[in-house]
Every structure is written in structure tokens, then in C-alpha cells.
């Protein structure tokens, strides 16, 4: 008897649960893992205000997201790069008409220990350091100390920007230390006078010192006027002009509320 009750309970719960999902408005978001934390945060806030909308988000990379737009299998695609010409042609051939929204900017700054006398590094110097060609700070005008290069895990968006803008697609040498988050890099650099690392601008604090790149300081202004070299826009694409729930969500994303969350996640808001 008891056993039967238990089974009935499970069935009832399952029914309630699935029904709850089925009645709600659905938005599916797919694509870049760099944009993922922004989408996640904004989606959570949005769902709190609109409990009848369910948003499902998955990663998978910019390429996968844009492919989903081409195949019209997702409502919104996150991407850390602009759509390529071949991709938009493919989309048109399949009857989809991708619409682009810039939702935030990524700005990555090189950081060193506060005791380090350097103020600026060129992109070429940074690249040589991360390739293991410059091994001592004195080669670039610092003290006679070995350079400890700290990098991010290769699947992070931060690493992706660094690889694209600084390394120009060449490999970071294997001796580079790896930290799994921006916070961990700050922690490691602040404890080591020999270290150099890179973080999203939003994670800067007083325990580390920011260096300018090619003489330009990373900031909201230099990112938005596109003079700072280690930055990029982050995109969301829809397969057609957005309507209904999708439009409401994107409007929320671009509103001051959404952009505030973007800033909280360590990215540069649009304004």
C-alpha cells in the first residue's frame, strides 16, 4: 500500500513538473561560452521578473551558436566574433536572416605585481613573453628577475581573446602557469613579484598593477572608442527580426538593468 502511494506521488510530481515547463514561453540560447555568463545572469533576472518565461541556455562555442542560427534551431545565438561572410550566405540560402546585436565588450588587461616598475608593454613584447622568448624582466627594462608567465585554461573566453589579439594564433609556451579563473590569476600575481598575467578589466583590484598595452590603458572609454588593442565586442544573433518573448529579452539585455548585470559579470557595458 505504502509503495503504491509513493509511486503515485512521483507520477503526480512528474506531471506537475512537465506541465509547468510546457505552459511557459520558451527561449533557447546557444553559443559562445564567453557570452554565457552574461546570458545566464541576465536570463535569471529576466525570469524573476517574467516567471512565465523559461529560458534555456547552453554553451558550445560561437561556431555552434551561429550554426544553430543558420539551421534555425535556436532563438538566440551567443557569439564572441562577428558572423562570417560564408555563414551569412549559408543562412540566407536556408531562409534565415541573421540579425546582429552587440551586447557587451570584452577588455583584457595585462597585470603584474605592484612592485614591478614597468608601466607599459607592447603587444610584441607580450607575445614574446608568452612564447617563452623573453625570459627575464631586464630584457624589457625591468629588474633582473625571471618572468613567471601566468595564462588561463585554453577553453576560457579570456584565453581566446589573448590568443587572438596578442598571440596572433601562435601557441602559449608549455611552461606558462595555468589558473582556472580571473580571480585566481589576481591571487597568483599579487603573491608573486615575478609574475605577469592577464584578466578581464572587471576583475582589476588594488592587489595587482595594470600595464598599458602599446601605450594605451585598458578602460571603458578606450574599449568603446576601439583604441585599446586587446578588446572585442560580444554579440547575440537572432535568425530573424526578433518578436515577442525574444524581443522582450533582448530589450531587457540592452536596457540599463541588463547592462548593469553585464558590468557585474566583469565585462564592459555599451554605455
Amino acid at each position, binding site marked *: 500500500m505504502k509503495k503504491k502511494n509513493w509511486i503515485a506521488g512521483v507520477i503526480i510530481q512528474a506531471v506537475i513538473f512537465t506541465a509547468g515547463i510546457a505552459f511557459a514561453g520558451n527561449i533557447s540560447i546557444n553559443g559562445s*561560452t564567453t557570452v554565457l555568463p552574461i546570458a545566464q545572469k541576465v536570463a535569471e533576472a529576466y525570469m524573476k521578473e517574467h516567471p512565465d518565461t523559461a529560458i534555456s541556455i*547552453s*554553451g*558550445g*562555442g560561437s561556431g*555552434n551558436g551561429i550554426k544553430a542560427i543558420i539551421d534555425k534551431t535556436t532563438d538566440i545565438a551567443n557569439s564572441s566574433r562577428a558572423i562570417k561572410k560564408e555563414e551569412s550566405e549559408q543562412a540566407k540560402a536556408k531562409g534565415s536572416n541573421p540579425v546582429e546585436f552587440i551586447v557587451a565588450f570584452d577588455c583584457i588587461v595585462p597585470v603584474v605585481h605592484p612592485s614591478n616598475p614597468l608601466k607599459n608593454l607592447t603587444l610584441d613584447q607580450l607575445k614574446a613573453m608568452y612564447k617563452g622568448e623573453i625570459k627575464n624582466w631586464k630584457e624589457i627594462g625591468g629588474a633582473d*628577475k*625571471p*618572468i*613567471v608567465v601566468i595564462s588561463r*585554461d*585554453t*577553453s*576560457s*573566453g579570456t*584565453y581566446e581573446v589573448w*590568443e587572438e589579439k596578442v598571440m596572433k*594564433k601562435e*601557441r602559449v609556451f*608549455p*611552461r*606558462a*602557469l*595555468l*589558473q*582556472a579563473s580571473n580571480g*585566481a590569476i589576481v*591571487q*597568483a600575481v599579487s*603573491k*608573486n*613579484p*615575478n*609574475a605577469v598575467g592577464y584578466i578581464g578589466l572587471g576583475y582589476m583590484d588594488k592587489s595587482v598593477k595594470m600595464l598599458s598595452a602599446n601605450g594605451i590603458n585598458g578602460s571603458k572609454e578606450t574599449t568603446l572608442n576601439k583604441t585599446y588593442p586587446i578588446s572585442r565586442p560580444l554579440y547575440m544573433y537572432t535568425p530573424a527580426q526578433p518578436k515577442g518573448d525574444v524581443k522582450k529579452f533582448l530589450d531587457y539585455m540592452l536596457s540599463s538593468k541588463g547592462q548593469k548585470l553585464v558590468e557585474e559579470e566583469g565585462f564592459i557595458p555599451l554605455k
Partner: protein
Amino acid sequence: MKNKRQRTDKSVRIFFFSVALASIAILFMIMIFLFMEGIPIFKKISIYDFIFGKYWYPTSSPPDFGIFPLILASIAVTLVSAAISIPLGVMTAIYLAELAHKRIAELIKPVVELLAALPSVVIGFFGMVIVAPFLQETFGIPTGLNLFNAALMLSFMSVPTICSISEDAIYSVPVALKEGSLALGATHWETLIRVIIPASISGISTAIILGMSRAIGETMVVLMVAGGAAMIPESLFDPVRPMPASIAAEMAEAPFRGDHYYALFATGIVLFLFTMLFNVIADHVVHKYRQTGEASL
């Protein structure tokens, strides 16, 4: 009446059997999942190149999936930590079980066991914030996040395991053995070395192997303090990236069912085989050197 009691008996037996079966089934399913998600990488790269490849660049194009530096790092970190934790753990156990006054033992034992209760992230943070700068300044090395630091932190974690299991083993040596030895004129020291330790060697070995398998599988500590450079270590103070650290750092953002994802699961298979090897050895040692009764010494 009798019928009812038999039925109760039977249902209790079935209940416990299904509980036991459930845990085995879950373990088995996790194993199948691990292999299913890991094996596809070997369509892209041979097992030999995967295990003995020297470069780990999973996201560059073309990617390199060589985990040899990661395997070496895991082995190196485990061995160095064993070199620190085995003497510490076993000697503490001997002291606690045989030499210490009862009151002191009652004080020290909970403290050692409390060390086991420290979350690994706390130990990792300690290693990162306190030990790493200390190593940098004391030894004048470029970075304190290295093999030695990781091994030291891991031994903090395996000492309690090694100590408490060895202590139980030493403690459960029959008193008659000890008294016999003393009655024959052996000193306390001779009794300890010639009788008590040989009699408990199976338990002590199990303790050591379990401690080491804890060290090789530990993730958080090595992720935080080992440095994470995917290169073959040449010195004790080189940064390294053991297998669990690589999996933990990269798994979250590896594209689902992409090559990188499969390669990380395949790394998990290698790690699983290592820990299984440790368990098989432990099991073997227990059976081979088991002290049965008092007459088999």
C-alpha cells in the same frame, strides 16, 4: 505464524541485497559513462600518441592531445607527497598506538583526524596564499606554485588517512604477541620493530596505498597550487599540471561532445585506471600479508 517470520526474513534480505546492488550498479554506470565519453577521442588520435604525446594544446588548430606531461605530473606529485606523508603518518601512528601516554594520545588523535576534515579548498588556499610566497622567498625560486608545494599540501590530506588506519592496525595486534615478546626479554623497542610492525604491516600498507590514492585523485589542491604548466617537470620546484587539475580547469567550457571534451574524459579514464591499480594493489597486500591469528608470525 512461522510463515510470516520467514517472509520478513526474506524481505529484509532482498532489501539489503538491492541496496548493495544499487551502489554497485551506480558505480558501474558511471564507469560505462566515463568510457563512452572518453573512447571517441581515439578515432582522432592513437592511444600511443595520446598517452606519450608531449604537448597538450586542445583548443589550437590543429589541436595536440598529448597527456604525457600530465601523467608524469600526477605520478611525481603523488610520489613526492608519499615521501613526506608516509614517514609522518606511520610514525605518528606508532607513537599514538604504542608510545604515547593515554591522555596525550587522546589529545593528539582528534587533532590529526580534524586535519582530514579540512576541506581541500581551504588547504589549497593556504598553499596559495601562505606557502607559495614563503617558498618563493626562502628558496629564491621564480614561483611558489609548483610540484613541491602541491605535494606538501597533498601530504596534509593523506597523513590523517595513513595515520588513523595504521593506528587501528597497530592497535589491533593481539596483546599476547606483545607480552610474549616482552616475556622473552626483548626490549620495548625490539618488540615494536620485530613484532608489532611486522604483525600490522598489512594494515599499514593498506593505509599507505589509500593515502596515496587520495593524493593522486585530489583535484582542488593541485588545481590551486601545482602551477598548472603542462610540461614535463625537471626539478622539484617546476610548476606542473596533474591530470585532475587539467580536467577541472577545462571541462566546464569544453564544447559538449567535441574532441576536447572527449580528450578530457579519456584523461579521466587514465586517472581511473591509476586509482584502480592502487586499489588492486591494496587488496592484494591485504590478502597476502594478512595476520591471521597469533601463530602465523
